[in-house]
């Protein structure tokens, strides 16, 4: 019998340049995505050493972290942010790197535009100076976040020094009920394995639930593996993957497309491939999830209560969040709602949220409910479908694309003590603004929270009846 390999083994082996006597490997990188925040020092290093990019055409840059989401005509008024975005533009011009700059019709969050443009392809190694690069693993690619020193390394050599991770399989079977989304699934998984549960592993997601998920849903899941400690998450290639990529601007064309598809179909774990760890999840049991603490693992079902636990970390999280043990999640009063981020800002996310918002009004107690599309193409698509009007009629603000209040590097942020239902990926202290309190939820839940001013169970019950 031929050696049985996991998807990760296959991707690793097909990019292995060499391994030294210490077990450190040189891995070839096919695609390098670059954004405004983690690149300036790498370009500076390259220039100081008199080096140039090894394969300049596989580098694609886009500013997203510092980009304002309103009054784009005024440009970036924060001068320090402006300098960083201008620096990216200058560096790209200097080295000849393709950039989707501010105002470009394809500009958006780096992890949204990669797949949407077909720059993300199965079988690739994809890196970016951003921990949510794991998103691209949804396409059967090996994709992971790197630091700025590594950004410089990959620019200069097209390679990275890596040691191989262990293999983990998370197998999910059963059906997600209406109102329970990929976001709830990944929050549930993080709650089960913990924020360091995936450290040292590459995680493959499989099982019938994953097979039935759209690419958007798969991206949401792979996006958040870093919140479980794993650098890379991945899903094997199937018709859903191939249908998504067909006719994408930068996807292969003609004969190349046919050859590529034949190769991509081999990108799945062999039947008897060995995993170092296997976790099985039953999707039937998953309910809408809400994080209550300052780490993504501190998560409960919407119908649940804040847990009790005698531990310093718990107390500190409760104190920061201004919550008490045993409080029902449904009693938490919200101030703001954010729908966006590389986790949940794609067209399907906006469609799901708009269904909940349609014909309703944002609660008076909500100071701000904003929708930030992941990219300009997502925004245009949503507007063609009339989703912008659904949101605006309900009282949501409809903004320009960017990272926005996921990490609050631009003007979109929480004030101290404000509480937000957010479709983003991190609920760390101060993440959305100093003193701000974040509850991570799905797009549907965020929309429902805006309408009701608090969390409600949006899932249909076991008999298939909606509860909204």
């Amino acid at each position, binding site marked *: 019998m031929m050696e049985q390999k996991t998807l990760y083994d296959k991707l690793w082996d*097909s*990019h292995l*340049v*060499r391994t*030294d006597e*210490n*077990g*450190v490997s*040189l891995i*070839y990188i*096919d695609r390098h995505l670059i954004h405004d*925040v*983690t690149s300036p*020092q790498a370009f*500076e290093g390259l220039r100081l*050493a008199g080096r140039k990019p*090894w394969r300049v055409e*596989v580098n694609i840059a886009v500013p997203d972290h510092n980009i304002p989401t309103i009054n784009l005509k005024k440009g970036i008024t924060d001068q320090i942010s402006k*300098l*960083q975005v201008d*620096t990216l533009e200058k560096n790209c011009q200097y080295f000849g790197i*393709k950039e989707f700059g501010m105002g470009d019709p394809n500009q958006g969050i780096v992890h949204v535009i990669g797949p949407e443009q077909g*720059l993300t*392809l199965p*079988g*690739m190694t994809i890196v970016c*100076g*951003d*921990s949510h690069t794991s998103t691209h693993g949804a396409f059967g690619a090996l994709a992971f*976040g*790197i*630091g*700025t020193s*590594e950004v410089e*390394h990959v620019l*200069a*050599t*097209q*390679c990275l*020094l890596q040691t191989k991770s262990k293999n983990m399989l998370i197998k999910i079977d059963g059906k997600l009920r209406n109102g329970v989304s990929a976001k709830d699934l990944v929050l549930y998984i993080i709650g089960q394995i913990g*924020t*360091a549960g995936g450290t*040292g592993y590459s995680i493959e997601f499989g099982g019938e639930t994953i097979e039935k998920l759209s690419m958007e849903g798969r991206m949401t899941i792979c996006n958040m593996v870093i919140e479980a400690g794993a650098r890379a998450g991945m899903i094997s290639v199937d018709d859903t993957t191939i249908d998504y990529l067909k006719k994408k601007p*930068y*996807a292969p*064309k003609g004969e*190349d497309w046919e050859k*590529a598809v034949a*190769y991509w179909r081999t990108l799945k774990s062999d039947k008897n491939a060995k995993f170092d760890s296997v976790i099985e999840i039953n999707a039937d049991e998953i309910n809408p999830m809400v994080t209550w603490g300052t780490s993504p693992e501190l998560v409960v079902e919407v119908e649940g209560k804040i847990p009790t636990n005698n531990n310093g*970390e718990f107390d*500190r999280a409760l104190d920061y969040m201004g919550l008490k043990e045993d409080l029902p999640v449904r009693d938490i009063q919200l101030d703001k709602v954010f729908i966006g981020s590389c986790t949940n800002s794609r067209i399907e996310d906006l469609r799901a949220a708009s269904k909940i918002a349609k014909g309703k009004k944002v609660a008076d107690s909500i100071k701000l409910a904003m929708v930030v599309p992941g990219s300009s193409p997502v925004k245009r698509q949503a507007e063609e479908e009339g989703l912008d009007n659904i949101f605006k009629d309900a009282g949501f603000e409809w903004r320009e694309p960017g990272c926005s209040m996921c*990490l*609050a*590097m631009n003007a979109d942020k929480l004030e*101290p003590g404000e509480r937000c239902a957010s479709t983003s990926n*991190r609920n*760390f*202290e*101060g993440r959305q603004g*100093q003193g701000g309190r974040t509850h991570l939820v799905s797009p549907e839940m965020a929309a429902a929270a805006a309408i009701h001013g608090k969390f409600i169970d949006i899932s249909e019950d076991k008999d298939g009846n909606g509860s909204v």
Partner: protein
Amino acid sequence: MEAFKTFTGLVAPLERSNVDTDAIIPKQYLKSIKRTGFGPNLFDEWRYLDHGEPGQDCSKRPLNSDFILNRDPYQKSSILLTQNNFGCGSSREHAPWALLDFGFNVIIAESFAEIFYNNCFKNGILLIVLSAEKIEKLFYKTKNVPRYTLTVDLEKQTIIDNSDLFISFKIEPFRKDALLQGLDEIGLTFEHRKDIKQFENEHKKIQPWLFNSV
């Protein structure tokens, strides 16, 4: 990168798990296009009572006197002792830059997040993973021995104090070599230029579409 051999320093105990890189260096400081100057903003939201913005004179800001690095003598500490999953979250290398700029050359914890772990070694910071039991013992010492100081010998992979403590630690050989010799990784990779070119030629045959379009 400077070569790392032995290091002696005052130990600051930070009794927290899951310290994320947003806490280590908040986002507003990531707007800098430099590698230096992040030290005054290390743990900014825990260290100061006001809201910090880039370009401030931090010596004039109100300090949170409860925070460990504001208490005597820890302003001058250079070894950080902490718990599980230190450095989780964002890949920002500004986190190790801030730790280094403050003066931390060694961090000892029960575990570290992977990207952070990589980033630290690339900046000459030695990260040491020890068992929960040993970490607890070190926390005990920092509480009971004034100005508790450790000496780390990377060559021998040992940690000692001024008393009878002796701990040996593990480290991957390649990381040890890189620190001991202060190697330029890019320069080293260039030594394998031929291997990379050869790989590229083979890769082009298997996945030609990766070379035909962008």
